[in-house]
């Protein structure tokens, strides 16, 4: 397999884990705009332990996951009392504080970043991503997942019906933070270098967009969103120049065309976001859509176990 392909697969796997981390909190109706902060915690924990103490990869990943989960829990307890705008701001502020603290700390290399000695091949993140995907699907199929869905759809009614709203939200948020930390640890070991400038507000925005555009009603959403938006820039890398050459050739002078700016890809992501919010705000993949697909198959259960809209 070529280095380019394996690189894309690795980043795809990391993005999927990251997206599931954010999904777990969004699936309880809590927008988490601090993804980069949790990923940075995991990445720096793994990088530091690997570089300073030479811990094996397995242990550094585990530490990153746990540490990030603890951070998530500490943040979730006071902050999940608040909702809407306050929560968005609080998670955003958390990511900024983490980035600022890392940037100023001598121990973690400051603006220089850390080189990570432990290198993992591309299939490690892929296998872990597959495992995480199955895990999230399992969580969403348990009673706990049902509680999460109920809170997502209507918090007040779930509370009235006896769902322990606060507990479910805190646990979901902390698990999500742990997954984001795991994705950070994998990032550190796959690319063998971390620098805090990579974990910025834009990264938090992107991962939240993956999840919301993919759809938050089912666990398929983040998978679809992360896959689509990771592969889209790669597809556009070839498509954009040829499109530009074609457009310019309509007016004659197709020779010496400068390649289009990288920023066009983000413009396209922005346009897609705005259009999705206008035409399909509930995301790409929804519960009715899955139910529809399932009904067409012979032998599918029309009623019964599956709860439709």
């Amino acid at each position: 397999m070529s280095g380019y392909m394996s690189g894309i697969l690795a980043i795809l796997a990391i993005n999927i884990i990251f997206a599931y981390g954010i999904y777990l909190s969004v699936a309880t109706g809590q927008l988490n705009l601090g993804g980069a902060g949790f990923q940075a915690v995991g990445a720096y924990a793994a990088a530091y332990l690997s570089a300073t103490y030479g811990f094996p990869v397995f242990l550094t990943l585990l530490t990153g996951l746990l540490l990030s989960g603890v951070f998530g829990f500490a943040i979730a307890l006071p902050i999940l009392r608040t909702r809407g705008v306050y929560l968005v701001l609080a998670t955003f502020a958390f990511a900024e504080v983490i980035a600022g603290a890392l940037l100023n700390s001598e121990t973690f290399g400051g603006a220089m970043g850390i080189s990570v000695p432990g290198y993992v091949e591309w299939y490690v993140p892929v296998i872990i991503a597959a495992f995480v995907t199955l895990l999230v699907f399992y969580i969403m199929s348990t009673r706990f997942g049902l509680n999460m869905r109920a809170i997502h759809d209507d918090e007040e009614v779930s509370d009235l019906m006896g769902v322990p709203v606060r507990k479910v939200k805190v646990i979901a948020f902390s698990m999500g933070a742990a997954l984001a930390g795991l994705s950070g640890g994998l990032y550190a070991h796959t690319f063998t270098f971390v620098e805090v400038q990579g974990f910025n507000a834009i990264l938090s925005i992107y991962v939240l967009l993956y999840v919301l555009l993919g759809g938050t009603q089912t666990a398929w959403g983040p998978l679809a969103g992360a896959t689509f938006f990771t592969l889209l820039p790669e597809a556009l890398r070839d498509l954009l120049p040829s499109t530009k050459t074609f457009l310019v050739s309509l007016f004659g002078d197709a020779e010496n065309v400068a390649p289009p700016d990288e920023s066009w890809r983000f413009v396209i992501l922005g346009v897609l976001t705005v259009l999705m919010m206008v035409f399909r705000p509930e995301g790409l993949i929804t519960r009715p859509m899955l139910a529809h697909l399932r009904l067409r198959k012979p032998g599918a259960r029309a009623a019964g176990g599956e709860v439709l809209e």
Partner: protein
Amino acid sequence: MLLVQQLVNSIMLGSVYVTVAVAFTLTIGILNFLNFTIPTLFMLAGMMGWALSYYGLPFGLSGPMPWPLALAVGVVLAILASLLVERFTFRYLKTRYGDSTEHAIPLVSSLGFLLILENLVRIGYGTEERRFVGPDADLTLNVGGLFIRVPQLISLFVTVLIVIFLTMLIRRTRIGRGLRAIAENPDAANILGVDTKRVVPVVFMLTGLLCGLAGALFAVNYGEVSPLMGEDIGTKAIAGMVIGGLGSIWGAVIGGLIVGVLELMTVHFFGADTVQVVVWGALLLTLIAYPSGLLGHNAIGKGKL
């Protein structure tokens, strides 16, 4: 003396944050909408003001403009962009599912607009910092050993005027009464005869105007613009707004000034690198310990729109 000079400077810097923070708090207080395009509108006014005075209109339609005209056009562009955002974030948005994330839809749309506008400016004019050539005279007053730049004094004055104007608009006029009604309950306001389709764009026009003016004044005062200039100012304005209390205009004024003072005092005592930690730490602590801020109301920003 140096400390007093720093205090004067921080009030001048704070007045930029105040203008942007008022824009944020206006959309949150009235529409319960955290508008992430605000930093971009700020940047758009400054960058377009620079581009028009340096290059002139695109495609060679005109030569370089004089800088006051260029800045005025920049402000108008910010207002137009803000109205465009209104079209796509509020006008057509009706959720079909009662998700508890539905209040997030305008927010997510505004994140999309942030990506679009910022990257279009980057494509057009590059990512480097540019020097904005404003008034050539050295306009610095020396008041008893303190140095005060006249453009900064003017912008402080403009900021105060804007805030007073907004307070009057919201308290005294018919439009203001409509805005207050929408803030309380959009559906009831609609039923009772507030024309939401005409009143909501007013909020966005005011947002565009505030950010445009702040961006133009920033370009004149500090003489530097870049496509990234909005991020730093925007995030600090958010911090100021939260500290002052969401949805309160005077809270945003106080919070913006506090952040300005906090920032320059941190620079003075600890160095420039720790500013981010101090400002955002203050924000996080405010949210955890006292979520409604100094002057905010508890009810705003919590319910669904």
